C-alpha cells in the first residue's frame, strides 16, 4: 500500500505528553491513534537515551490496530443500521459520500502510519470513519460547505497539531488539498454527515474530559448540523413530516384523484388562462396548493377565479383577441369542464363550471366542425352519474347556512334565536342522516333549498353520512350552548358520529381546518362557542385558533400557541380520551378532564385567566341573554 501511494515513511517520533491516555477508556485510546509510527532511527535514539525497556514500552503503548478495527467496526455497524432506516435515495447519497470519505481516510492513514500491516479487508472495515482531524474545522463552520478549504489546510498544517508530523505536511498538502477542495464543493458533503451520527453520538457519550472537550463540541456540532440537514431535507418534501405508511396513504397525485377523462392537461391549461388573464395571481395558486387538498384545489381555484368580476370579460377578451388559440383552449378545457360538472355533485361548483362552459359555447360556432362534433359527443356521453363527495368547505358552508336559519330578525332589527326552530332541532338531528339533512335544509331560502335537496336525495349514502358526521355534532353543540342543557337526543347525536367528529376535532381534516380558521376570523367564536370551548379545552390545534378568537397580540398569541403545541403533544392520548368521553355523553367528566389538562399544562395563570375571561366575555356578549350562560359555563370552569 505504501509503495503504491509513494508516500514517505515516518522519520520522527512525536508524542503528546500533555494528554494522558487512560488505557481503560477506549475512546481516549482511539484518540491516540494519530500518534505516528516509530522509525528505526527513532527506536535507536530511544534506546540510546532511555534504554532497552523504554523501546518496548513505547512500542507496547502504540495504538492497537485490532482495537481500532473493532471499535470502528462497531461504529460502522451502528451507522449501517441507521443508514438502512433512511430512505433509499438518501442512502445512495450517503453511500456515495462514504466512498469519497474512504478515499480521504486511506490517504490520511497512509500518511500518518505508512499503512502498515492492515489488510485491504481491514482497511475496508475502518475507512468509513474519518479521523476527527479531517472535520475539526467544522466546529466553527456549522456545515461542510461552509468550511474554507484553506482554513482546513491551515489546521492540517498547524505546527501545534500533534497528529501530523512536520515531515509529512508537504505530502498532506499535495495529496489532500485537491481532494478536500473537491469534496467540499460537492453536494455530498453535508449529506454524508448524517452517516456519522451514530459514531458521533457514541463519541460524545464516551468522551467527557479535558483535552478532548473540543471533540465533544465537535461531535455535538456535527450531530446538530446533521440533524438540521436531515430535518431541512424532509421539510423540503410535502410528505416529509409523515411516517412511511402515512406517506403512502396521504400522498396522492393529481392523476390519481382525477380520472383520465377529466383531462389533467385541461386543468393545467385552465390555470394557465386564469393566470394569463390575471384573475388569479401566482400567490393565489401558491396559497391554493398550501391550503387545499387534491380533491378541493381545482374547485377552490375556479371559484376564486369566477368570483372575480373581471374574469369572464377577461377570458372573453382573451379568446376574442386570440382566435387562433381559442379553439385549442376549448379543445383542452371543455372536456374537462363537462366531465367535471357531471361528476361533481356540489351545486355551487356546477354553476361555476356551467359559466365556464357557457363562455366557450359562445365561441363554439367559430370552431372547426371536428371540434364541435367532439364537444357534442362529450356532452351527450353519459359519464358516471355518481356525484363526487362534497368538498368539506361546502359541507361547512351548508352547516353555516343551517345554523343561520335557526335565527331570525326581530322587529327591532336584532338577530335573535328562532326559538321554535331551535326547539325542533334535537328531534331533527336524531333522525337518520339523509332525512335529518333534508329536514334541516327546509328552512333555507327556496333557491338554495332546491339545490341542496337535489344533492342530498341523489348522493350516495357514504357522502350523506360524511356530511351528517360534520353537521350533526356541530349543530348538537350549538343547541347545547343555546339551551344551556344536555338533551338526551343530543347525546345520541354526539355518540352517532364519533369517528368523523374525532377526525375533525383532532385537526386531521386540513380543508375543514382552514375553513374553520377563516370562520374564526369572521367571528366564528361568537356564533359557535360550544365548538370553541372544545377546541380550547384540550384538543390539538386549539392554540392555532386562539389568536383568531381572542384578538390577542402576536406576542401573547405566540406564547399561547407554543404552549398549546406542547399541550397537544403531551396530552394527545388524554385529548382523544376526553373527546371520546364527550362523545359518549360523559359530558361533565370530559370537560373536567379538559379543565385539568388546561390547568396542568398552561401553567401561566395569566394566560389561563385570560382564556377563561375571554370565553366568558365572548359567550356572554354573543349569546341570547335569555340563556343562563353563566350557569352553563360555571358547570365547567
Amino acid at each position: 500500500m505504501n509503495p503504491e501511494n509513494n508516500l514517505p515513511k515516518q522519520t520522527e517520533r512525536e508524542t503528546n505528553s500533555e494528554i494522558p491516555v487512560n488505557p481503560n477508556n477506549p475512546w481516549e485510546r482511539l484518540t491516540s491513534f494519530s500518534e505516528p509510527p516509530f522509525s528505526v532511527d527513532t527506536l535507536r535514539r530511544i534506546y540510546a537515551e532511555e534504554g532497552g525497556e523504554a523501546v518496548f514500552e513505547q512500542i507496547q503503548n502504540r495504538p492497537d490496530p485490532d482495537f481500532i478495527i473493532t471499535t470502528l467496526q462497531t461504529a460502522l455497524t451502528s451507522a449501517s443500521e441507521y443508514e438502512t432506516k433512511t430512505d433509499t435515495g438518501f442512502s445512495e447519497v450517503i453511500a456515495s459520500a462514504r466512498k469519497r470519505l474512504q478515499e480521504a481516510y486511506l490517504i490520511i492513514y497512509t500518511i500518518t502510519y505508512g499503512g502498515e500491516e492492515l489488510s485491504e479487508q481491514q482497511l475496508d472495515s475502518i475507512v468509513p470513519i474519518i479521523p476527527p482531524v479531517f472535520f475539526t474545522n467544522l466546529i466553527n463552520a456549522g456545515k461542510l460547505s461552509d468550511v474554507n478549504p484553506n482554513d482546513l489546510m491551515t489546521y492540517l498544517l498547524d505546527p501545534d497539531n500533534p497528529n501530523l508530523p512536520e515531515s509529512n505536511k508537504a505530502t498532506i498538502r499535495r495529496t489532500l488539498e485537491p481532494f478536500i477542495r473537491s469534496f467540499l464543493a460537492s453536494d455530498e458533503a453535508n449529506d454524508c454527515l448524517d452517516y456519522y451520527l451514530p459514531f458521533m453520538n457514541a463519541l460524545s457519550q464516551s468522551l467527557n474530559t479535558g483535552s478532548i472537550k473540543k471533540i465533544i463540541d465537535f461531535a455535538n456540532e456535527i450531530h446538530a448540523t446533521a440533524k438540521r440537514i436531515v430535518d431541512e431535507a424532509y421539510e423540503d418534501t410535502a410528505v416529509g413530516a409523515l411516517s412511511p405508511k402515512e406517506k403512502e396513504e396521504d400522498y396522492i397525485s393529481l392523476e390519481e384523484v382525477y380520472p383520465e377523462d377529466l383531462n389533467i392537461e385541461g386543468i393545467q391549461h385552465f390555470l394557465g388562462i386564469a393566470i394569463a388573464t390575471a384573475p388569479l395571481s401566482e400567490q393565489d395558486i401558491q396559497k391554493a396548493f398550501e391550503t387545499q387538498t387534491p380533491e378541493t384545489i381545482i374547485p377552490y381555484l375556479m371559484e376564486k377565479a369566477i368570483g372575480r368580476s373581471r374574469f369572464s370579460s377577461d377570458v372573453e377578451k382573451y379568446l376574442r383577441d386570440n382566435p387562433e388559440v381559442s379553439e385549442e383552449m376549448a379543445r383542452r378545457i371543455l372536456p374537462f369542464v363537462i366531465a367535471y360538472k357531471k361528476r361533481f355533485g356540489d351545486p355551487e361548483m356546477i354553476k361555476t363550471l356551467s359559466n365556464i362552459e357557457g363562455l366557450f359555447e359562445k365561441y363554439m360556432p367559430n370552431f372547426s366542425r371536428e371540434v364541435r362534433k367532439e364537444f357534442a359527443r362529450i356532452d351527450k356521453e353519459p359519464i358516471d352519474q355518481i356525484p363526487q363527495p362534497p368538498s368539506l368547505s361546502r359541507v361547512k358552508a351548508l352547516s353555516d347556512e343551517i345554523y343561520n336559519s335557526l335565527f331570525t330578525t326581530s322587529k327591532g332589527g336584532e338577530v335573535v334565536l328562532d326559538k321554535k326552530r331551535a326547539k325542533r332541532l334535537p328531534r331533527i338531528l336524531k333522525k337518520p342522516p339523509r332525512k335529518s339533512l333534508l329536514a334541516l335544509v327546509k328552512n333555507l331560502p327556496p333557491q338554495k333549498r332546491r339545490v341542496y335537496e337535489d344533492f342530498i336525495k341523489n348522493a350516495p349514502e357514504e357522502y350523506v353520512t360524511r356530511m351528517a358526521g360534520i353537521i350533526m355534532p356541530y349543530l348538537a353543540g350549538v343547541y347545547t350552548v343555546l339551551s344551556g342543557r344536555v338533551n338526551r337526543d343530543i347525546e345520541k347525536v354526539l355518540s352517532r358520529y364519533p369517528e368523523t367528529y374525532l377526525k375533525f376535532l383532532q385537526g386531521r381534516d386540513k380543508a375543514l381546518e382552514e375553513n374553520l380558521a377563516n370562520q374564526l376570523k369572521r367571528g366564528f367564536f361568537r356564533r359557535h362557542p360550544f365548538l370553541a370551548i372544545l377546541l380550547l379545552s384540550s384538543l390539538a390545534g386549539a392554540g392555532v385558533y386562539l389568536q383568531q378568537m381572542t384578538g390577542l397580540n402576536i406576542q401573547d398569541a405566540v406564547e399561547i400557541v407554543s404552549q398549546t403545541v406542547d399541550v397537544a403533544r403531551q396530552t394527545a392520548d388524554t385529548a382523544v380520551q376526553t373527546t371520546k368521553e364527550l362523545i359518549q355523553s360523559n359530558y361533565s367528566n370530559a370537560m373536567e378532564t379538559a379543565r385539568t389538562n388546561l390547568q396542568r399544562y398552561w401553567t401561566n395563570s395569566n394566560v389561563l385567566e385570560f382564556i377563561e375571561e375571554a370565553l366568558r366575555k365572548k359567550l356572554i356578549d354573543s349569546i341570547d341573554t335569555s340563556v343562563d350562560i353563566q350557569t352553563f359555563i360555571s358547570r365547567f370552569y
Partner: protein
Amino acid sequence: MAVPKNILSLIYNVLAEDFINAIEENKLSINEQKKISSLILENISKDKTENEIMKFLETLASDYPFFSKSIETIKVAVIEKTERKNPKENPKEKEVLKKLQITLRKYESRK
C-alpha cells in the same frame, strides 16, 4: 531469587538491540512488535525469579530465532554479574565454567 535491577536493564538492552535490528530488516509486523514488547515487559521484571526469566527467554528464542544470540549473551552476562555479586564462590571453578561457555558459544556459532 529476584533478579537485580541492573541485570534486568542489561537483559532489556540486549533484547532491544536484536529487536530493533529485526524491525530494520522488516522481520516484524506492527502487531508482532506490540505482542513481543508486551511479552517482554510482562515476563522480565523484578517480580520474576532468575529461573522464570531464563525460562521465558528460552521460549522467546524458540518463537523468534533472531533473539537466540541475545539469549546466550544474556546468559553469559547474567553469570558474570552473578559471579561478581557472589565473590565467595570458587574462582577456579568459575573460570572453567566461563571458558566452557565461551567454547560452547563458538561451537554454536560455527554450527
